[in-house]
């Protein structure tokens, strides 16, 4: 039998779709492990996915935040992606993330679970600048 650990098709297709979008988007598996973000998200964070690689949500928080209005790190369990995976429900929040150059970016985040006939496989989160009229890649709408 083969030895590779195959990603579920739903995650593969989600990644393929995300790769073609200009909207920053993040993908976690059913264990909450960040398994991909797209080029637009990489621009927002200042680090392309290829340079970061798979990280757990805890590590992700240490790298990029997010932070609440007072600048305090938002607890792991309150992140929309974590809620989506854990509770199998969509979640939305607004907060600040920090890119690798130290710049803060206020974003709105919507996350939703990826459900399959065999249960939840992970979640997708879409980030959007929390500035009126802004588009996700920085241009005015």
């Amino acid at each position, binding site marked *: 039998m*083969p030895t590779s650990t195959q990603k579920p*098709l739903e995650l593969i297709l989600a990644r393929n779709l995300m790769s073609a979008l200009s909207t920053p988007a993040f993908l976690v598996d059913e264990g909450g492990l960040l398994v991909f973000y797209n080029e637009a998200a990489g621009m927002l964070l200042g680090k392309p996915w290829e340079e970061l690689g798979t990280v757990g949500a805890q590590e992700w928080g240490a790298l990029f935040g997010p932070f609440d209005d007072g600048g305090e790190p938002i607890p792991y369990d309150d992140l929309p992606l974590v809620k989506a995976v854990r509770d199998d429900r969509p979640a939305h929040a607004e907060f600040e993330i920090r890119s690798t150059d130290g710049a803060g970016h206020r974003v709105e985040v919507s996350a939703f679970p990826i459900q399959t006939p065999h249960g939840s496989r992970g979640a997708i989160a879409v980030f959007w600048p929390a500035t009126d009229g802004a588009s996700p890649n920085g241009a005015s709408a």
Partner: protein
Amino acid sequence: MKVKLWGTRGSVPSPGPETIRYGGNTSCVGVTLSDGSLLALDAGTGIRNLGLSLPDEPSRLHLLLTHLHLDHIQGLVFFAPCFRPQTEIVIWGPASPEASLRDRIARYISAPLSPVEVRELPCDVSFRSTPESEWEIGPARIRAASVSHRGPTLGYRIDDGDRSLAYIPDHEPALGADLEKLEDEWISGFGLAEGASLLIHDGQYADAEYPNHLGWGHSSLSHALSFARRTGVDRTVLFHHDPLHSDAQLDQLGEEARERWAAAGGDPGAIELGVEGAELDLRAATPEPSPVPAV
């Protein structure tokens, strides 16, 4: 394990003088396991001849459906064992949150599309959604996994002793992805095909045809060759021929496939186009792993 191709065509039956060599029947593959038991993969129109080849005696057989598009189930109501009370048929297929496998198949095997209803079939038929984990049928270990196509679609891997068959007849693994750059774990169907003795894989389109069929759920020749190379299979049969492809066109496609495989360092004998009626003995066919192209 022995494999016989009963239907190699995709989409719609295409009988006629121009398709007589590669065949016009839609997807169906018979697999005889090491203990002599039979599996049928898909129930396109090719399954009619498979059924006619079976003796009229008490038997039990498993039918593994990749998905429920018509070219994969159309032959079911013409499959002779369905009409033999002494036959037990177990039909496996993809799960769906919408309806049971039985109810979804019954949309075809019911009026006005069919003269008989599922409940009227004389055989002892049962329907099972494939489990997530591997299961056993006779001496074989079976694994099903979702693959990239339109609608819920499975590929299968059958391991019997040290021989293995991967069957992925409808597959577009390169949709939105570059197969040459993706990590193994992110390639649709990779885990099913990895290192298989024989891969039966979608090869519906010539490269020039693919751009007009992007997202239709099928592979170009380049994609099929890339998939075969990445998964390191011993031998590949390109399958699910486009109904518009004549024997002459398929000859050309097969020649191109062999040339490109050889040019990349592979054994040209390890790539072939599926021919209706062809029999492949995995024990004899692949005593040694074939060279796999490096690029």
